[in-house]
């Protein structure tokens, strides 16, 4: 029961946040504590991940994944708050580590001295604690709390550490997310009233045997849709994407990197957890009056699974995101803008894989989830690296607008090649991880076509269009900013050596993971199985049967 390895990443992040707050008077000490803290966090996460997904699973030499649980303050499930670490949580945590470690090292060199001293480091670690909590929690209200813990520091970081002209964007970001939180609270309250529990494992079990527990699942479908909308807002999927470009532009580069790389993935993770683990086997009963009316009108919902009903919605949102993100990115003249729109489009690919997974048979479902997870990992690393590169360009040249840039490749070759590597990882050129991400999405669409799914053909076409758009905007950014003859500001630019070293090392990760792709694929496979294997999840948490 009391395996502290599950809670360790959370405690490490919290303690580091407090220590950095306490050492404000000693800037060097504070920075040292912060960097040591992130190191300890990485160790804690890797220790947890190696318990959950043993090395044997990664190398393919056998071994089984485990699901560890932890009852905070010793209250049994479903009364107390459970922390659950399964392969999916572990995968997402490792993804977070891959992004936050370089982002924090970059911040220590990039963010202004005074701003760092005031509270940058503690805010960063609080945000990290929120992300960790959201990945680990097995309780839906606790998920809300961790979302808030994650968002509150991000408001402050966007508002007060961004450039002054972005106050309006920051205000929009804050108000929008506050409204999202209120709506999430409403959905959670409704789910508690209908299902009678907040423990995710317990909800999954009760919905799977709705009749035995006397639950009408139809209201849960609607409340789940509200919850889904909130998660989509956090993940920035069309039609909830409008805050993304302004907020990413407003945030300082390392924070934009963490937001695009990690907090977006928290939204994706929550969608996967909610739809595939919690609602995985739920079906709509025929009892509810509106359902009966709908039946009469010819589009009945009775007997359909939640996943089957969410699938088309996911599909439309994915198509919207891919097209809007891609077309938006092609028409921008600012590095950060392109990256922000591109991250809308890239999340679209992830959601597309999830949509195919939601409607398809089991084989397609697993393939879709694997594709979504691999794509998430690639996007997290490549996009964060690109945001950091954009920050480095700003530091070196003083602008990230295309009319001021040009010819960076001759002046700053290492920076330029880092951008090139990150860019082609987004495009998906082998042997980078991006290639496997795209390949798996196309593969899923192919499998879905074979399985005779109606939308699969459209999905394939949209994914192709999205890939073409990705090539277009990446090559355009490359042409405008890095090729050609050096512009005046570029000739006058200086070389931020340490920053360039950090981003170059970071972006190499895309190549390293792509060349050694087998373990990544096996980890994603284990995570996909964990996401769909409800019995193991429920048994690991083992909530007491009540009612």
């Amino acid at each position: 029961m009391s395996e502290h390895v599950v809670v360790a990443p959370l405690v490490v992040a919290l303690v580091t946040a407090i220590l950095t707050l306490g050492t404000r008077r000693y800037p060097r000490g504070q920075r040292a504590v912060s960097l040591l803290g992130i190191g300890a966090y990485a160790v804690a996460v890797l220790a947890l991940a190696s318990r959950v997904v043993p090395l044997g699973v990664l190398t393919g030499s056998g071994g089984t994944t485990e699901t560890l649980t932890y009852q905070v303050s010793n209250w049994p499930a479903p009364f107390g708050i459970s922390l659950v670490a399964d392969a999916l949580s572990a995968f997402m945590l490792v993804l977070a580590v891959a992004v936050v470690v370089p982002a924090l090292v970059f911040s220590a060199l990039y963010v202004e001295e005074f701003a760092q001293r005031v509270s940058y480091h503690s805010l960063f670690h609080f945000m990290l604690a929120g992300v960790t909590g959201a990945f680990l929690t097995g309780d839906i209200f606790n998920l809300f709390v961790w979302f808030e813990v994650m968002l509150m520091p991000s408001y402050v970081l966007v508002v007060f550490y961004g450039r002054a002209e972005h106050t309006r964007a920051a205000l929009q970001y804050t108000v929008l997310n506050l409204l999202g939180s209120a709506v999430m609270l409403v959905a959670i309250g409704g789910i508690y009233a209908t299902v009678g529990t907040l423990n995710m494992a317990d909800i999954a079990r009760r919905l799977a045997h709705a009749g035995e527990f006397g639950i009408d699942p139809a209201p849960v479908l609607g409340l789940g849709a509200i919850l889904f909308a909130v998660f989509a807002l956090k993940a920035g999927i069309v039609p909830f994407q409008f805050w993304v470009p302004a907020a990413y532009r407003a945030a300082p580069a390392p924070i934009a990197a963490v937001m695009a790389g990690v907090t977006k993935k928290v939204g994706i993770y929550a969608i996967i957890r909610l739809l595939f683990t919690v609602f995985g086997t739920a079906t709509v009963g025929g009892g509810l009056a509106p359902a009966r009316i709908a039946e009469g009108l010819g589009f009945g919902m009775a007997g359909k699974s939640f996943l089957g009903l969410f699938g088309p919605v996911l599909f439309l949102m994915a198509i919207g995101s891919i097209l809007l993100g891609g077309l938006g990115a092609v028409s921008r003249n600012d590095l950060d803008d392109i990256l922000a729109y591109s991250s809308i489009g890239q999340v679209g690919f992830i959601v597309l894989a999830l949509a195919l997974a939601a409607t398809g048979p089991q084989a397609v479902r697993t393939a879709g989830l694997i594709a979504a997870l691999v794509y998430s990992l690639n996007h997290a690393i490549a996009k964060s690296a690109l945001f950091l590169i954009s920050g480095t360009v700003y530091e070196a040249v003083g602008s990230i607008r295309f009319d001021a840039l040009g010819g960076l490749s001759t002046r700053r070759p290492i920076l330029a090649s880092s951008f090139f590597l990150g860019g082609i990882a987004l495009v998906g050129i082998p042997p980078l991880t991006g290639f496997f991400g795209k390949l798996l999405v196309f593969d899923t669409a192919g499998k879905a076509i074979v399985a005779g799914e109606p939308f699969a053909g459209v999905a394939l076409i949209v994914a192709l269009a999205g890939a073409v758009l990705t090539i277009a905007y990446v090559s355009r950014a490359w042409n405008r900013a890095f090729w050609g003859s050096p512009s005046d500001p570029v000739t006058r630019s200086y070389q931020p050596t340490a920053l360039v070293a950090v981003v170059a090392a970071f972006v190499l990760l895309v190549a390293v993971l792509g060349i050694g792709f087998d373990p990544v694929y096996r980890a994603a496979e284990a995570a996909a199985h964990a996401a769909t294997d409800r019995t193991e999840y429920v048994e690991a948490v083992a909530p007491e049967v009540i009612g």
Partner: protein
Amino acid sequence: MSSEPRPTDGDTTVIARTITRVVVPIIMLVAIALLLQGHNLPGGGFIAGVLTVTGFALIYVIYGLRYVEQELLHRTVVPRSLPISEGAAETDVDPPIIKEFGEIFTVGLALAAASGIVAMALGFPFLSQGVWFLAGVPLYGHMEVASALAFDLGVYLVVVGGLLTILAVVGAE
């Protein structure tokens, strides 16, 4: 909290001043009572902290910021143009009093976290709480000491420190 604390010396009435004088000690006492019983009765660190700050806010409003600074705390708050805790300020040195509020905040946070970690050190899950029953205490006879009190005290300090910082910074404008 919603009222704007301004140096209002001169335009508060004798009635308001006298009532404040009587009411503030009562507020503080209630706050302490809520803090102490919070582990198993209505109350707790958060509400006790809010109540304490309410008491301070009342003094701010009725007696003015200058009075609190000079008479009660013997410190000054330099008027500044931007909130410090959120950075981007031109001044490089925090006014002493705000620094101390910030320290209260940090200590509270550390206390709350430590109360959870102690449980881990003793082999229980994070944030586990316990209670000791003490018999034969003079005057009280029987007493319960709940470990949750440490957590509550931490929350109390966080709330007091955080709110007083906001009050002092915004009030100083």
